[in-house]
């Protein structure tokens, strides 16, 4: 069952963030939620994951499902080693399954050599890599990503995005990827949902058909869709 939000309402005091908000996300693809800063993207993720309550409405397709989350900042426990940080969240699986998954994702992300290191002995990029490895090792059917590459330099951002896509291709899950950068959405997404306005609503939805490997800044779809996406930010 795909993830769908129907007639969602959420206010903070007098400020209404969502009023009869509707959106539908396709299963097992990368759904990018694109919107200007402060439009309610993180609130939407928090509501879907259950971290925040909502006033009214319906969320369909999350029942009984676990969530993996890649936050803007890695949110690691400084007093645990790289491996222990992964073990800490692996409750739903048995010990042997957990160990197997942890080993696998540490190996794929190249963190296996650093499994006994503590987070503050790692660079910023490696910390975020660990956060991605943790999210994939955890058996979350739905993966929520809240601007996970914000603030990283261009090279590292590309490295981590490529790594994320590689991991996701091997283990496809429904991804909700929040960003405010049209370029990032164009390079990563299968579907792009633009949200905005006051109260927030879905303004536009499009599907990116070009294979990820063929997406370049001068490809036709990139240019055409890019123009549409940017128009929402310049209005």
């Amino acid at each position: 069952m795909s993830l769908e939000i129907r007639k969602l309402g959420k206010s903070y005091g007098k400020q209404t963030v969502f009023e009869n908000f509707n959106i539908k996300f396709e299963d097992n693809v990368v759904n990018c939620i694109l919107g200007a800063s402060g439009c309610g993207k993180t609130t939407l993720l928090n509501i879907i994951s259950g971290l925040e309550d909502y006033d009214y409405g319906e969320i369909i397709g999350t029942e009984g499902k676990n969530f993996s989350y890649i936050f803007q900042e890695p949110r690691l426990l400084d007093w645990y080693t790289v491996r222990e940080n992964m073990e800490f969240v692996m409750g739903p699986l048995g010990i042997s399954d957990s160990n197997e998954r942890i080993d696998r994702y540490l190996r794929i992300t190249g963190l296996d050599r650093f499994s006994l290191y503590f987070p503050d002995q790692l660079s910023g990029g490696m910390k975020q890599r660990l956060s991605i490895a943790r999210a994939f090792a955890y058996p979350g059917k739905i993966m929520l990503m809240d601007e996970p590459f914000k603030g990283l330099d261009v090279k590292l951002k590309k490295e981590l995005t490529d790594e994320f896509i590689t991991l996701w291709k091997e283990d496809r899950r429904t991804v909700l990827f929040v960003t405010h950068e049209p370029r990032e959405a164009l390079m990563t997404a299968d579907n792009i949902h633009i949200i905005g306005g006051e109260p927030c609503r879905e303004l536009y939805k499009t599907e990116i058909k070009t294979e990820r490997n063929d997406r370049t800044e001068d490809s036709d779809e990139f240019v055409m869709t890019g123009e549409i996406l940017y128009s929402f930010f310049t209005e």
Partner: protein
Amino acid sequence: MSKYWKKTAVVVAWFLIWYLVALLINNQLKFPGPIETLRVLFSQVIAGEGFVLTVGASLLRILLGFTGAFMIGVSTGIAAGIYKGFSDFMEPVVSVARATPVMSFIILAMIWFSFSTVPVVICFLMCFPIFYQNSKEGILNTDSNLVKMADLYKVPGGKIITGIYLRSMKPYVNAAANICLGLAFKVTVAAEVLASPDYGIGSRLYDAKIYLEPVEVFAWTFVILVLSYLLEQILRIIFKSRKQRSNKDVAGN
């Protein structure tokens, strides 16, 4: 020069200053020098009757008061950090314990408890508010983003308490333990001086005062300083984290 030799040089320099001041005052009854103090320390204090019992009794009282304050202070501090109502309930007790002069407590304790118990109670009363306050601060300053992360990954509540709250609290409890250890020695010995139980360093200090033996006061003070230093080192080992023991370089991208 290594760190060890630097420390030794500083200690030797202060012994020299002590020696010169004593030489200048030139009155053993008022201000004994280090040589006389060390002579009395080894010939009368350490070799004297009941030294082990005296030191043992004081140490036991310090450990009982300190451990009691640690256990009750930390557990109530955690509860106060989690439940605002409990924090409000505890506030008057902690404020009174912090503001009341130690002498008032000692005198009251001498009315209510046996003389050998008074120093334990005083040590507890002085250390408890510090453990309580620091533990509460530790809980309140726990990174809520880490707790949200754990909630999202459905980490069980008990594991969140031990893996996030207690770990975040550790530096605060560590700081409290360091402050309290020094304080515990001071107030326990002060309470022993006033309550004068059969065995205790404070009782021996009181005897030295009665018999006008300042050199013995110096010698016993020396014993207190050495014991305090040793306990501080033990505490440092206990609280040393795995992270401090690990000594790896920072890894790049």
